[in-house]
């Protein structure tokens, strides 16, 4: 094999090899989602999800989630899951509500390792699933720095 051909094929192999496995891939996130929902169907919408479209520092990203619901004893939002596709561990947080919450809404601060899509998955008291997603661009990522 000529050295040029060898060079090209080895460079191709390097490009294609999964050399940065520190981050979860889209399929990891999909696995986490399918583990939560099992074999039920998911509808899109109903969830308000506030994620800044451009994040300067991935170490603290303020997010807000809200689901429309009357929050009565037999119709309320049971749990809201947040799943980040590009984080080393896709699970971010799972928040459980009760009728006493009055409102299915929370704000917190999360870490984002990379520019990515973040999913929000909500389960109602009758078992129904809803989801939504938001994309963001992260300029300084979390988790990777040395200490």
């Amino acid at each position: 094999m000529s050295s040029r051909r060898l060079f090209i094929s080895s460079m191709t192999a390097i490009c294609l090899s999964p050399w940065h496995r520190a981050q979860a891939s889209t399929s990891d996130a999909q696995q986490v989602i399918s583990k939560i929902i099992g074999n039920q169907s998911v509808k899109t919408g109903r969830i308000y999800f506030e994620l800044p479209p451009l994040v300067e520092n991935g170490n603290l990203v303020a997010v807000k989630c809200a689901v429309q619901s009357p929050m009565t004893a037999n119709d309320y939002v049971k749990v809201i899951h947040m799943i980040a596709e590009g984080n080393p561990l896709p699970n971010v947080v799972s928040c459980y509500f009760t009728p006493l919450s009055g409102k299915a809404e929370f704000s917190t601060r999360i870490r984002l390792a990379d520019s990515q899509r973040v999913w929000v998955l909500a389960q109602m008291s009758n078992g129904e699933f809803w989801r939504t997603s938001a994309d963001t661009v992260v300029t300084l990522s979390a988790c990777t720095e040395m200490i």
Partner: protein
Amino acid sequence: MSRSSRAVVTFSNQVKRGELFSIRAIVQHDMESGFRHTEQGVRVPRDIIREFVCTYNGRPVFRADLHPGIGSNPVFIFDAKADQSGVIECRWSGDNDYLTVLQQPITVL
């Protein structure tokens, strides 16, 4: 002996019956993700808060399962419905016997 740290829970201390009020709970914690390395290449072990629970007179209002994707000094802002005077209790528990409990009275008019 469990470890604990400084926590602050804020809400308006007088609420009208039937109204929603917002609770803001913050606690001091590094939330060491377990994905970071020292300069020598040694992985820093994970040390995070695993669970946050808020109860209102013993009844659950809000609970969260935390993962390393939550930033340091975790904050949660959520709502509760005022129905009786009593105590709001916030409890954070996590790795290495971490436990912080904070109780605060609430007056419902």
